[in-house]
């Protein structure tokens, strides 16, 4: 076994430091990283002071030049999104998406627990740059420690004059309001989050408008950003866009946090260089995951959160670069990598994910509400050995009502299967419906034989027999 060189940190369980530059996790090394004292002692709130000396446009330009890609899933450049606010419409709001619930994703939680002031400073910079007068920080309901730490930090920041009226004696005033979620995955979707903030059922809004920047919270222009996206801002303002783009690639600069779970030797959250780090570096690197558990063979991995189409070892050399991963049939999403080794029961793994998305359907649109549960029911029948070959077709046919046309998937050179590029088409309002189908589609496309084995011997079962069995 190789010697591991990454550093687990006792007071930051789940985080492993490595040799890459540390932009957002730098303070994790300190045991009191979440306190105002530590934050101020380590350059904290200096970026805010620096920003306040510039015009908002200058700060906005800096962020635009840094090509800071959104870390919430869609990877849209923050600086560009900020520019979508219609001019002259006030007030405008900032909504911080801290609802992190995508299966396998737990990076934002660490940022909120271990460096809440960095997030608050990021929020203030964004508000200053875009002229947002109020910030709503929406934290997932289950994240008790994060809630506590952010609340404490916010109190301290108010006390120290970093938040509130006339911040640091300037003309700039912002209030930050905390809001706890109530346990729905779909509320991570930005328009559902806004509905939830307004006190309505957490259901996505319809598009158009495509961005809440035009019509968002209470009908006002609203910027929704992910926790990690905002946590990058103090560093960018402090060190400049050039320093940021010097790391990573031109189209994916900086670092990003990834959360690895499943069958690796050292699952955890890593800060990696964006655009250049490959999945192989991450899963096999000695300062990172250190290889597959028990030195088993890698069977498959989900590269970007539970809703992403799956990859196999054939795609290990792809870097964390959307423009390369998309054409190969998947996405980087929320930066969650789920690893399955050779011992994995693939249909059962797909069922776990499908069940999650079916359960999390908000029920607003028919294909997701009815289709998701139906897919789960068929798949469960297959996984428990009661299905027939017809069910395998049915899974795809039902899925096609949710996602018509070809669904993206990876190439399998051995089987002569070519990649179908991302994205897919869908009949649903948001991505939850397709997400229930994605694992099934990947699993069936890449590992059809495992499904066939499950239904083998059931050839003579009629639909009636299957039904009676249900």
């Amino acid at each position, binding site marked *: 076994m190789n010697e591991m060189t990454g550093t687990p940190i006792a007071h930051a369980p789940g985080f492993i430091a490595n040799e890459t530059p540390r932009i957002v996790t730098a303070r994790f090394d300190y045991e009191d990283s979440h306190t105002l004292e530590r934050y101020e002692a380590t350059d904290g709130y200096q970026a805010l002071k620096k920003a306040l000396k510039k015009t908002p446009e200058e700060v906005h330009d800096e962020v635009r030049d840094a090509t800071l890609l959104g870390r919430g899933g869609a990877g849209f450049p923050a600086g560009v999104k900020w520019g979508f606010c219609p001019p002259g419409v006030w007030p405008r709001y900032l909504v911080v998406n801290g609802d992190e619930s995508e299966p396998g994703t737990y990076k934002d939680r660490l940022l909120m627990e271990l460096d809440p002031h960095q997030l608050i400073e990021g929020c203030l910079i964004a508000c200053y740059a875009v002229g947002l007068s109020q910030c709503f920080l929406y934290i997932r309901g289950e994240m008790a420690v994060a809630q506590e730490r952010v609340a404490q930090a916010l109190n301290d920041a108010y006390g120290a004059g970093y938040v509130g009226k006339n911040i640091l004696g300037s003309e700039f005033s912002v209030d930050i309001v905390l809001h706890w979620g109530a346990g729905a995955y779909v509320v991570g979707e930005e328009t559902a989050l806004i509905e939830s903030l307004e006190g309505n059922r957490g259901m996505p809004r319809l598009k158009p408008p495509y961005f809440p920047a035009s019509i968002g919270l209470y009908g006002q222009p609203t910027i929704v950003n992910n926790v990690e996206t905002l946590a990058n801002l103090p560093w960018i303002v402090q060190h400049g866009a050039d320093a940021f783009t010097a790391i990573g690639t031109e189209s994916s600069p900086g670092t990003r946090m990834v959360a690895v779970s499943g069958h690796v030797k050292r699952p955890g959250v890593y800060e990696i260089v964006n655009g250049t780090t490959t999945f192989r570096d991450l899963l096999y690197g000695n300062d990172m995951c250190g290889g597959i558990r028990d030195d088993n063979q890698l069977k498959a991995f989900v590269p970007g959160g539970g809703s992403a189409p799956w990859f196999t070892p054939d795609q290990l050399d792809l870097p964390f670069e959307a423009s390369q991963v998309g054409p190969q049939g998947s996405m980087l999403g929320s930066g969650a990598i789920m690893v399955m080794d050779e011992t994995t029961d693939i249909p059962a793994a797909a069922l776990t994910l499908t069940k999650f998305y079916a359960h999390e*359907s908000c029920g607003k649109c028919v294909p997701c509400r009815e289709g998701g549960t139906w897919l789960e029911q068929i798949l469960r029948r297959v996984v428990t050995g009661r299905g027939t070959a017809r069910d395998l077709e049915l899974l795809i046919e039902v899925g096609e009502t949710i996602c018509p046309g070809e669904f993206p998937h990876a190439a399998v050179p051995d089987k002569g299967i070519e990649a179908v590029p991302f994205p897919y088409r869908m009949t649903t309002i948001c991505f939850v419906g397709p997400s229930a189908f994605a694992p099934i589609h990947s699993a069936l496309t890449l590992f059809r034989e495992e499904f066939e084995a499950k239904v083998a011997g059931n050839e003579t079962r009629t639909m009636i027999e299957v039904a009676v069995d249900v």
Partner: protein
Amino acid sequence: MSEQDVTEVTVTVNGTEIEAQSGEMLIAAADRAGVHIPRFCYHERMSSVGMCRMCLVDVDTGRGPMLQPSCMVPVSEGMIVDTESDDTKRAQEGILEFLLVNHPLDCPVCDKGGECPLQDQTLAYGPGESRFIEEKRHYEKPIPISDLVHLDRERCILCDRCTRFADEIAGDPLIQFTERGNSTQVLTFPDEPFSSYFSGNTVQICPVGALTAAPYRFKARPWDLEENESTCTTCSMGCRISVQSSRNELVRYLGVDVESVNHGWLCDKGRFNFEAVNSDERLTSPFVRDPDNQRQLLGTDWGSALASSAEAIRRAGPQKVGIIGGSRLTNEDAYAWSKFARSVIGTDNVDAQLGDGLPAELVLGLPPATIADACEADTVLVIGPDLKEELAILHLRLRGAATKGRTQVVQIGAATTGSDSYAQRSIRCQTGEAAKTLSELLSSDDPLAKQLSDGSVVVILGRSSVAESVDPAVATAAVIQAELPHATFLVAVRRGNVRGALDMGLAPGFLPGRTRISNPSASLTEKWKQIPEKSGLGTSEMLQAAAAGQIETLILLGADPLSDFPDRNLAADAIQKTKTVIAIDNFATSSVAQADIVLPATAYGEQSGTTTNIEGRISRVAQKITSPGSTRDDWMIATELAWRLGGDLELTSKEDIWREIEQVAPSHAGITLERVQSSEMFEGILVQQSSIDLALPVPKDTPVADGYGLRLISGRKLWDAATTTEQSPSLRHLAESPSIKVHPNDLQRLGIPSGTEVRVISTRATENLTVTADDNVQRGTAILPFNQPGVGANRFIDATAVINDIRIETL
């Protein structure tokens, strides 16, 4: 989007170019072009929610065809749409299969079966068979969510139409989605039923049989239904409806969507009171009072009843006959009675109103506005009754316009109303003092004064309280005429076809066609020959004259003064002192029970003709069923009586009557029978001209309160003891038993705890009633609704007083 921004765009739908307005949803544009896109959640009167995904079609805006929900996609120039592509068809099949996955398919026992969009669209666009073999969702079925509506959650396809209607249109968000995902369901809140005045609309717009109406459940199958397009005459709004019957019995009314009036909506009172028409309590043959036992009515035949009636009229002579009522009648029936009174009896003592409306002068003479005018005016000034209670759909239209920001509603009144929630301002004043409050407002520097004087204004003017005389309303009209000369009026007289009856001259001093008795048209003089020269008496004066023994024969033309005239004492006295009371009605109301001769009339749904709504819009009422027993149309009764009095109305049919109205009524000139029978009548024909130059009576001043008593305020409730409500088994129990509401401080001053029984004393009566503390009531006033079952406010009111005060004492 302002109107200037709307531009025409060209969209290609299935190869054909169609014109559409930018911003309009694709599904609406396709509808207008005659291309039907299937849908469940979309409803043209509500905002789009894009939930069912049934309306997905291929839309190409230059980047290749993509499936898009057509209820959510605004049209844009050059858009190419294919509603029949393979992808579209597959999506439609798929969505329908999904919808059926959990649908119970209990079509054979479902009210909706046969007219169900889910059935129909499955037939047209659905897959041949279902591949779903799992257990379906199960819920208890059905559960009552209100007295009138049942919910079957298994049948529900979660289209959000009912919930959206309740929230967006009715403003009663009492039904909501609960749970999530596959367990989502529509429900009420615990212990809070869906008690909305508009609940029946949800049944009508539910695209499946999930919501059913108690009065219709299991009554008929759609293929057994016959229908006629008609107009609701329960109040003067004149909502367009489809009257449906099965086996010669009315079973259902549905709202018909007309732009100018009701947008397809109905209130529950109008929707469900068809039950009364079918009631066993209907009068089906004539009665006369038993000469040997004055307490009893004896059945008789039409010949003798008409003969005694004619005799009573002849004996009294023109000055001592009075005719009260007529707003239940169609325009044609009202015309026949108007002609009968003037040209045969020779009396002008006719009044369609029951002393609870406004002088005909105001109704016919104030500059008129339409409902649409109100919904588009800069300001709607409401000084009158609680519209939600009295003109429910007018309230809905105003609410819609106000919540969409098209108009601003301003109210001046003494009590809280159903419009408070959407009004820009609700200005409280003492009862009877709206005119004073308004003139003070207009001479102040309140920005509202400028808003009213600079912008367009529609005034909805009516009696704020039946315990006020007409004087405060007249005073208000005078202030508005003087200070806001640009304002137009919707006069809020409430009862059925009261507008039409007044137009036909059932008001003292007025002739058909909005003319004064002093100024008859040449054609009218020619047809009528004899017209009284002097104005006769209105209802109040007739009752006073009767009480003084000066009226010998009183004809109640569908009127029940004992329940509806504000002053029950006076009405009772008048009826008692009148030698012969002839009642023409559908039911033995409390006044009819006192009559000497009772003539049974046909009811709604049994007669055809026209009716006129609050804005003067003429629309059709249709006969759907045959009338029971020997009931007769009101106009026939007038003709028969005329013959027996030696006259001849020369009217032989409703069509005939309309032709004559068109000739003799100046305001109706040009509205020919052909037009009235044409498709123009779908929206109705608006009659706005009037030759009356308004001479407002001089109002009496409101006396100052004495500080001891409480000023009585009495308005109507939607659910009250109205005959048609009482005679409808499903509605009868919806009226609350009366309780007098007083401000808690006033009660405290009197040392009376809320909820106790007290003695209520006025100049007219002393009665026991329960008192309730309510801090929505202004100090110094007491609110007692009119015509509730039990002790009604009309016992306490003196019709000759401007304002009525009461006192409350412990027992």
